[in-house]
């Protein structure tokens, strides 16, 4: 009897190659496929265990999504129909020309195989790509059995385990992606056509420019514009406060006012007078206590992007690209995860041991296994698909490009920090009552740096020591006086802040946030400026005239309409994301979600058409300002 034939399909060629290498143990035949230079078939033998036993395997891949959703031909031209009809126009799935050879390869290979094992990334997109692969495999062999491998990195043992513990494809997750794809296509196309057709003729600057709309892009732009306007409109105000200083044991202790500062000078003056009238201050609290700075939580994608753009001077898209490549090469785990707790089953010490060869943190890793190891803190998130981002094995810095090196170092230092002891210190705090007012002073001594030694991104340093004070003692402060200051405008939005806002408001997923940010730069809705210089330099987002005009126009369109939130706000998109979760949980069907969301956006679309002049006015207003200046 000839061995069972199995077809394996991964999401990208690099994963197919890595998995084939691990499963075959190295003896693998590589066969190029006709019509695509990237995708290869890898042929080898592997024992999948019961019930499959020893099998003849062909491992291949796709290149991301195999199919694309498209309108029927008669709706594709920009002038072919009213943009509004795109909410209902028929759509169908098609294989794009450059993917046809890949689809054909799968269909042909399936013909000879009894089973199809899907090795796409374990997330929503991966699940959907899995259903696309299944569809084409079934065209070749309707009776083919379909299974899926569950894995989150390409380390050998992990891959071998995954191959012997196959599960089912999750159609609910695939349906959520299908729903989102349809909504994005219809809503995006309808609004983009409307905007482009209506606004292009208004000014030279927009001629031939696509003014795109995306349900994530626009709220992302909204955050940038909102902050920009807050900076622009800001009015500085003066404030006053009371500063108390006391010299004891040759130490000048500065006491801070509990009220910080107030915006009424006369009131502060009276309060200070009452302090001085009281003459003596009374010590109401003396706190001496051990304190600690907690080691960081295990690393999620959002955190990687936020921390990365803060400390590595890379934008989120570059970070994700580097992380993706580190994962594909097998150096780190899957970079798209919401999980900030390690599974109990994972052998952390083994992972730490892999870092011993490193010149910079190898010694530190050794120290962890010599007794410094602590079980990582567990956060509150678990996507039940992937572990937190962590290094899989050590890689020589020379084997990586500059971006990869920075990201690998960050991921590794963060991982080692997670497995370390908190930093320990000693804090003292003194509170005094002076007149009717309360003041306090704080001192900190760092005793053990622990995780801070490897996690160079966190700062925690000793401050001034406090002299001795006793509870209940009275003393006359050396000095008490009024200080003044002025409120300052907030800063323009930085990338970590923007990602934080997107995350908190449900705009995009950890996987797509970086793309949305890149998109609004591409469309010239925002530009990136550098604020400050040297170590303190930060990149900030500033909207262009077009970005401001679009947001203002949309806000005006819905102003006074109680049930229609502006498209520049996150509300509608957030609702859509939560519907996606409903599909995944089986609480709603794809069909119902698509209809409900389309109805909501359609309503906004109708308002937009009716009040399009408000949008035009905003464009005229800002484009003429540019012309004039």
């Amino acid at each position, binding site marked *: 009897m000839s061995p069972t034939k199995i077809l394996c399909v991964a999401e990208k060629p690099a994963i197919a190659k890595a998995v084939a290498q691990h499963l075959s143990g190295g003896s693998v035949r590589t066969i190029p496929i006709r019509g695509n230079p990237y995708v290869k078939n890898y042929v080898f033998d592997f024992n999948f265990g019961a019930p499959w036993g020893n099998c003849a395997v062909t491992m291949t891949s796709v290149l991301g999504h195999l199919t694309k959703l498209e309108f029927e031909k008669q709706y594709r031209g920009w002038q072919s129909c009213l943009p509004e009809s795109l909410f209902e126009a028929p759509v169908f799935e098609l294989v794009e020309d450059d993917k046809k050879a890949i689809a054909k390869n799968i269909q042909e290979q399936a013909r000879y195989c009894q089973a199809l094992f899907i090795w796409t990334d374990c997330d929503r997109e991966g699940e959907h790509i899995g259903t696309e692969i299944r569809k084409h495999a079934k065209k070749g062999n309707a009776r083919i059995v379909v299974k899926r491998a569950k894995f989150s990195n390409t380390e050998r043992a992990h891959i071998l385990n995954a191959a012997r513990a196959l599960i089912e494809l999750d159609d609910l997750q695939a349906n959520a992606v299908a729903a989102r794809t349809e909504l994005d296509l219809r809503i995006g196309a309808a609004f983009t056509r409307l905007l482009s057709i209506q606004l292009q003729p208004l000014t030279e600057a927009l001629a031939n420019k696509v003014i795109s709309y995306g349900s994530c892009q626009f709220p992302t732009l909204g955050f940038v514009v909102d902050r920009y306007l807050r900076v622009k409109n800001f009015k500085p105000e003066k404030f006053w406060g009371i500063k108390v200083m006391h010299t004891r044991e040759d130490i000048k202790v500065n006491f801070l006012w509990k009220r910080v500062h107030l915006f009424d000078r006369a009131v502060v003056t009276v309060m200070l007078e009452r302090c001085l009238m009281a003459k003596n201050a009374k010590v109401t609290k003396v706190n001496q206590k051990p304190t600690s700075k907690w080691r960081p939580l295990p690393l999620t994608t959002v955190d990687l992007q936020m921390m990365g753009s803060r400390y590595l001077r890379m934008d989120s898209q570059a970070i994700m690209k580097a992380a993706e490549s580190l994962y594909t090469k097998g150096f780190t785990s899957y970079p798209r995860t919401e999980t900030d707790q390690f599974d109990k089953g994972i052998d952390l010490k083994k992972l730490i041991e892999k870092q011993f060869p490193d010149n910079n943190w190898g010694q530190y890793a050794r120290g962890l296994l010599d007794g410094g190891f602590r079980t990582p803190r567990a956060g509150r998130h678990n996507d039940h698909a992937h572990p937190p981002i962590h290094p899989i094995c050590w890689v020589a810095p020379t084997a990586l490009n500059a971006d990869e090196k920075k990201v690998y170092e960050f991921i590794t230092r963060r991982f080692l920090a997670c497995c370390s002891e908190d930093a320990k210190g000693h804090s003292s705090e003194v509170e005094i009552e002076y007149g009717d007012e309360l003041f306090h002073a704080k001192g900190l001594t760092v005793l053990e740096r622990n995780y801070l030694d490897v996690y160079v991104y966190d700062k925690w340093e000793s401050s001034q020591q406090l002299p001795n004070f006793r509870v209940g003692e009275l003393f006359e402060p050396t000095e008490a006086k009024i200080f003044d200051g002025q409120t300052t405008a907030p800063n323009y939005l930085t990338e970590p802040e923007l990602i*934080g806002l997107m995350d908190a*408001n449900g705009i995009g997923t950890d996987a797509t946030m970086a793309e949305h940010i890149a998109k609004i730069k591409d469309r010239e809705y925002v530009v990136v400026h550098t604020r400050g210089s040297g170590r303190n330099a930060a990149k900030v987002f500033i909207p262009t005239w077009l970005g401001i005009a679009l947001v203002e126009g949309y806000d005006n369109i819905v102003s006074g309409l109680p049930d229609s939130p502006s498209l520049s706000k996150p509300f509608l998109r957030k609702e859509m994301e939560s519907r996606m979760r409903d599909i995944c949980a089986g609480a709603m069907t794809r069909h119902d979600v698509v209809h409900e969301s389309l109805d909501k956006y359609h309503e906004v679309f109708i308002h937009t058409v009716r009040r399009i002049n408000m949008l035009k006015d905003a464009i005229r207003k800002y484009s003429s300002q540019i012309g004039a200046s």
Partner: protein
Amino acid sequence: MASTSAQLTTHLQTKYSLPVSPTWLNAFLASTQQHRTVPLSALTQTAHFRLLASDFRDSLTTETSSSLLPADIFDPTVQERRLQGPIPVQVLDIDDIGTSLWSQVEAIERVERGEAVRGREIVRTVNVDDSEGVTRGASTTTTNAGAHESGGSNGPHRLILQDARGTRAVAIELKSVGGIALGSMAIGAKLVLRDVTVARGMVLLTPECVTLLGGKVEALDLAWREGRKQRLLDRLGEMERGQE
């Protein structure tokens, strides 16, 4: 009849420290004439309720000087004095001096747009079923360092108080007094001051010397609310001109 009015006067004085004006009381009794069978305690309740909604300048007597603010209360040359009271007063204005005017304007505008801020999250407050966690005046980025997180207004608050004779005084919430907050305290709300310190013309409010009776004067309150944003903007404008 005379005894009812005397009894009511005594009750309102001893129970709420409100020296009611005979003219107002007569008008009140006339309006409740048809319910002559109403027991005194219920009548006192009704009178009390009406007093809280009244203007003290109409409803209280100005005969007893101990229940009035001194006419020179604003005098900034007096370092400290104590008023024994009890002095019933009504609130004409309330202001949060722990928060910048501009961040108060921003907070009002967020409410106008039907939004509220929950940490970094922006939430819709209109037409949303779950209205949990709607915070007012919670702006952590423009209130300056150390400003408290969310919830009512930060304080301390500065009030303008008025007594039965119409004398006005500035009062400062020296220690946090429950019920004094933007939003929850209405204009025309009534307080009774007892054994209160006045420093440089400012009444210093602490929980020990203030009894909050509540209430409001509807017309005043409405006008105050409608005009609040514009008043904040006007003051910011003045400030800007002052700096030039």
